[in-house]
């Protein structure tokens, strides 16, 4: 029972990371495409909350190595390279953002910080997607007899992983666009972000389709899993049907409904993914899989971990509520 509960907590952490961390990465991507005129909005919106947004990843990874060590080991062995690249991008974007914000002088160096922040935001979320794809693509071998390429390269270096990476980039940019609509102060700013959202939306659909196509043509596991789970298909349909509604909200400038709707979309996408995944943590290339029950630590560990997480939830959520209330209660554009 603890195994399932802990898995759910990890799922919640991942959903929150997808939404909050995604908005953060996406903010960097927006800057990359819209340019300097967006950067004061991004800084103002992100600065008080970005550190907290990235804690969800730390929580998820701690749960993984504490509660599901076998999955953590597979992840960090076969996906060593994309994880390292992801982490380096994380380091660069976080520090560049902080440096830009806190440097005592706002001179030429700001351009450099901005460039690093923007490119590494895009790369971070791309490599995150590439890494995550390997959990359900069925590209990781179930033994360690293969060549270097089979073991350490192919699991993440394939068309499917590329599609998932791009998909994550586009939806992060989309989430960030929606969040930033509530933060911009000028009419022209609102319109340029609005235009940007349409593009990210189009690209999300294209990359979303290419995820299925690449899985199908490379004969991977993902599309088979998806088609076997009507509930996942259902969430996919709802997410798509919500789009016209969100465009109406953007037009009528209903900031909170818009944010809520996008949050719901992301939640549904993640639920769709979890349904496919449950109870597997990693799907191997031979069609077998590592389930959460196989990977779970001993009962004593799961129990203690669950208690520690429960205490954490009781402390973190009220504190987070306070933080967001303090800084995000009133969107600037009424």
């Amino acid at each position, binding site marked *: 029972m603890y195994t399932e509960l802990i898995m759910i907590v990890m799922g919640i952490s991942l959903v929150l990371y997808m939404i909050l961390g995604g908005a953060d990465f996406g903010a960097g991507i927006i800057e990359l495409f819209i340019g300097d005129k967006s950067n004061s909005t991004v800084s103002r919106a992100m600065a008080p909350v970005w*550190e*907290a947004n990235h804690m969800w990843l730390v929580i998820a990874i701690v749960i993984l*190595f504490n509660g599901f060590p*076998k999955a*953590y080991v597979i992840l960090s062995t076969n996906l060593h390279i994309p994880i390292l690249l992801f982490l380096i991008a994380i380091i660069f974007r976080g520090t560049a953002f902080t*440096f830009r914000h806190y*440097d005592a002088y706002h001179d030429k160096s700001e351009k450099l910080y901005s460039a690093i922040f923007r490119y590494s935001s895009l790369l971070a979320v791309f490599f995150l997607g590439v890494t995550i794809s390997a959990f359900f693509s069925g590209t990781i071998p179930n033994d360690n007899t293969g060549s270097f390429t089979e*073991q350490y390269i192919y699991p993440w270096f394939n068309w499917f992983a590329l599609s998932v990476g791009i998909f994550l980039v586009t939806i992060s940019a989309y989430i960030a666009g929606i969040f930033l609509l509530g933060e911009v102060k000028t009419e022209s700013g609102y319109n340029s972000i609005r235009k940007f959202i349409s593009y990210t939306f189009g690209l999300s659909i294209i990359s979303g389709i290419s995820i299925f196509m690449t899985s199908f043509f490379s004969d991977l596991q993902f599309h088979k899993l998806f088609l076997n789970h009507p509930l996942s298909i259902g969430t996919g349909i709802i997410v798509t049907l919500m789009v016209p509604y969100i465009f109406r909200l953007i037009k009528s400038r209903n900031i909170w409904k818009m944010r809520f709707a996008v949050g719901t979309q992301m939640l549904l996408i993640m639920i769709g993914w979890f349904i496919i995944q449950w109870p597997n943590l990693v799907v191997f290339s031979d069609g077998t899989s590592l389930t959460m029950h196989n990977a779970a630590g001993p009962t004593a560990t799961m129990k203690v971990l669950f208690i520690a997480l429960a205490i*954490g939830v009781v402390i973190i959520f009220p504190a987070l509520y306070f933080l967001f209330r303090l800084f995000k209660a009133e969107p600037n554009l009424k």
Partner: protein
Amino acid sequence: MEDLLAARMQMAISLGWHIIFACIGMAMPFFMAYAEWKWMKTKDPIYLDLAKSWSKGVAIFFAVGAVSGTLLSFELGLLWPTFMEHAGPIFGMPFSMEGTAFFVEAIALGVFLYGWDKISPIAHWISGLLVGISGVMSGIFVVAANAWMNSPAGFDFIDGEYINIDPVAAMFNDAWFTQATHMTFAAFASTGFAVAGVHAIMLLRGHKIRFHKEALKIALIFGAIAAFAMPITGDLAAKDVAKRQPAKLAAMEAHYHTSKNAPLIIGGIPNDETQKVEYAIEIPGGLSFLAHGDFDAEVIGLDQIPEDERPPTIVVHFAFQIMVGLGSLMMLIGFIYFFMRWRKWDYINSKWWLRLLALATPIGFIALEAGWTVTEVGRQPWIIYKVMRTKDALTPMPGIQFSLITVVFVYSILTLAVIWLMYRQIKSIHEKYNA
């Protein structure tokens, strides 16, 4: 380069780098909260300025510490998967609690940095204090996990299987308390001396403004008090090591031959081949007394440790000498400081004193790194003491040297960037005060 060596170097660099930022993140929020407290009490704007300037430093150090810590949480698996597979469920509990503490720290820091006009002064001050408290808690949790590697507990290791796992017993292992207290005070001592030293340098360079004088006073109080706590907590830690890890103690002291009334060896160059320490000062019975509280107690030497279970004597011995030497120096400086305060000397304008503090800027952090080297290298060749060897924990992925080169490259850039940013922070203060 061999993968094992590359992986060990990468781990050492990542930890050694992170530890500096983590320690500043533990101690500096208290300096900042203290300054804010003084501002609330005196309404002297210089303290408000100080709290704000330091908070910018904390923000920069925290961000760097947070991202390098994220790297570490993955690096454990990237480099030592076999270790994590078995250790994860046993020693993971402090990490899961550290996650919460770290989260609170991030939230409290957000509130402190951006909430100046949004909440009451007292609430704001509390948020600053919370940054420090949760930072210290994070540090304690992480050190407790490290202590478990030195003092494995909370499981039975039978026929290569880890059974009867008890994560609570693992967290409260025999070493956690002595290691955590020693580390926490070390954070305050090293950060206090570094911050005081930087402000002393500024005063010496002719920026004779009150800003630096008040800053120096606050930082030095923390640094000096903590410096006195170092030998006490260090002594507890050493006695504990003597009991649990005789090999580590023997390497620290370059104590080759098991003996009663063992001498304390100061300095010297240990020679593994002749099993002698050349050019050392010896205090008869000193080691027996320090390790066991009795001048005639027997202290196990390296001769009783199987050859393939001995840590590298030279590294551990030198690191230990550096730590103790610099620690003693810091205590001496602390003593002079309290003496001058007691005699009401005008120390803040005394050139020789400022010069001494300026020279002492890095010594706390050098001692910290040396101490870390003692505990980590002193545990070798084990990753889990007496249970798993470091070489058996290594990732099967070849080519770790490329990963090492990448990490070195990234951290070198970041080090330069942080120095450059701090330089500019200070410069902006001087422009503000026309000093």
